[in-house]
């Protein structure tokens, strides 16, 4: 144990200012590193590619359905898809289809009011973005511990400012590439569809982007946990992805009625599991009128903090 010797109290405001400045400096350097190491390019490629591919794939699917429907009904086919889908959306049968599929009238109301491509974007973004983060963010600290590059920063700032800066940098990267992904999605959809709802689609994507980012935060936190818990980049990636798979399985079991059974205690425990895994908060964020939006938002933020704090508890005491 290190004996403590009284040292004069430093100015709290100056300390806070210094802490914020250091965190911002580390975050900025992290962004620069991501650019220099081409991680950012890879992420942009993945997210933009996913956005473009998603929009194009959706257009192709709609085109296939419309052409088949045209063949059956003998109606003329349009050069570009989307016309029939728009007419379908304006009819009551689209709502009924959604209600049957979702088994929830109010949800059907909500989703029927949005262009189908926006719903598709939300579903795809919420499903895939976390996995991309888990793969790319896991080695941000562990690789620096392994190479001991962290020592240069650890001499000059607190480990907390360093780790928070790294997490902030990763969050900014995710915010940027997911926005770019949404923009690409919009442009490709615009090019592919015949009757494109410019305003409604833009507003829809704009409303999904912060929700996707919010849903990503616990995954950034989990990646940071993995990165701080190990001193090997590969191990961190395995922990990040493997741990997330385990959490996804746990969440899947927790929402599965046969597994839950009828016991009050066991159900309460399964409910707890859904709260503690980020996957349990996807539906609440995707469907804000459902009533769980604020709770899920708060829990996503809380989980991000909890995962980060658990990792930092290890990094704080680790030999570098």
């Amino acid at each position, binding site marked *: 144990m290190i004996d403590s010797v009284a040292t004069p109290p430093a100015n709290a405001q100056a300390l806070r200012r210094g802490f914020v400045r250091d965190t911002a400096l580390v975050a900025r350097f992290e962004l620069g590193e991501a650019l220099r190491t081409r991680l950012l390019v890879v992420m942009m490629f993945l997210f933009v590619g996913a956005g473009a591919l998603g929009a194009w794939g959706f257009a192709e699917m709609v085109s296939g359905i419309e052409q088949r429907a045209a063949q059956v009904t003998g109606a003329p086919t349009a050069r570009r898809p989307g016309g029939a889908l728009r007419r379908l959306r304006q009819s009551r049968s689209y709502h009924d289809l959604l209600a049957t599929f979702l088994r929830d009238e109010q949800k059907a109301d909500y989703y029927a009011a949005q262009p189908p491509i926006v719903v598709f974007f939300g579903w795809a973004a919420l499903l895939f973005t976390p996995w991309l983060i888990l793969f790319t963010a896991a080695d941000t600290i562990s690789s620096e511990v392994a190479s001991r590059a962290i*020592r240069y920063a650890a001499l000059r700032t607190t480990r907390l400012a360093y780790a928070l800066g790294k997490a902030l940098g990763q969050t900014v990267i995710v915010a940027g590439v997911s926005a770019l992904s949404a923009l690409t999605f919009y442009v490709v959809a615009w090019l592919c569809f015949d009757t494109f709802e410019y305003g409604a689609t833009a507003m829809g994507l704009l409303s999904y982007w912060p929700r996707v980012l919010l849903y990503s935060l616990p995954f950034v936190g989990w990646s940071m946990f993995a990165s701080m818990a190990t001193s090997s980049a590969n191990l961190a990636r395995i922990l990040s992805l493997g741990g997330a798979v385990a959490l996804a399985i746990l969440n899947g079991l927790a929402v599965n009625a046969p597994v839950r059974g009828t016991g009050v205690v066991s159900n309460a425990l399964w409910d707890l599991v859904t709260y503690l895994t980020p996957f349990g908060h996807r539906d609440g964020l995707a469907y804000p009128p459902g009533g769980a939006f604020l709770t899920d938002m708060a829990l996503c933020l809380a989980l991000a903090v909890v995962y980060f704090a658990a990792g930092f508890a290890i990094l704080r005491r680790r030999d570098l």
Partner: protein
Amino acid sequence: MSASPALRLTDVWKRFGSTQALRGLALEVPAGSIFGLIGPNGAGKTTAFSIACGFLRPDRGQVTILDVSGFDPVRLKGRMSAMPQDAALGRETRCLEHLRFFGQLQGLSAREAARQGEAVLDQVGLSDRRDHKTKTLSHGMLRRLAIAQALLGSPELVMLDEPTSGLDPRHAHELRELLRQSRQGRTLLISSHNLAELEALCDHVAFIDHGVVVAGGATDALTQKGQQVEIYLATGPAPYAAVAAALPGDVVTWDEPTRVLRIVLAADAAAVARAAEDVIAVALRVLLDAGARISGLRRGTSLEKKFLEMT
């Protein structure tokens, strides 16, 4: 200059698995000194260094740096710097970008960090590489870049772990000169295997072996510069008996195989340095009068010899 030591380690213990790296290490680095940390491989030098820098946590013991208890990056911001051994620098980042980041992180403004970054790159002979990515640098250049980051700002304590390892003789010499010039009241702690280098550079040293300091103090005192004189004679007369007769009270010995005349000054000699000079004058006069051919002279013993005795 502060009266208290720049760095004090008291009863510091550290274990790695089954290896006890430090066993109650006690070390005081006087403020304003150039202090050499010497020891064989695995003696605990880098562990002690890393504990002082806050990279490693001691199992037990107390560390005080510039009157701050334990390593505290907030209270020590800008006051201490270090060149850690074997710590990599981001391969894709340019030299000046590294230094700008480190400078800002230790409290300098962006403009000042850039200005000082360029200055230290010039000092270590890397100004032509300022915009080169570190992956394009040779091992020696990376070493110099690591030294450059330790010279940023105006740290009161600079710790360098094996700074000249991997440097060619010219750059090693230039670095020694740079360190001598950049002293300006600051404390330099240097860990090295190069004992001749440390002897020439350091005014204080400590020998570490098996995790403890086995000897330490002022370099002149450790090497007995004021207490012993060695005179090397070429073939020819060796009038050591005449020298002994001219220096009553001092112990004069002659080693025939190496042809070294060793004079150990009387222990009660006051004003030791002056006495050593007087002894040399007397001995040389006697030797030259007797026709001896003097091939060399050395005051005290070498740090290397002392190190071999102690470890």
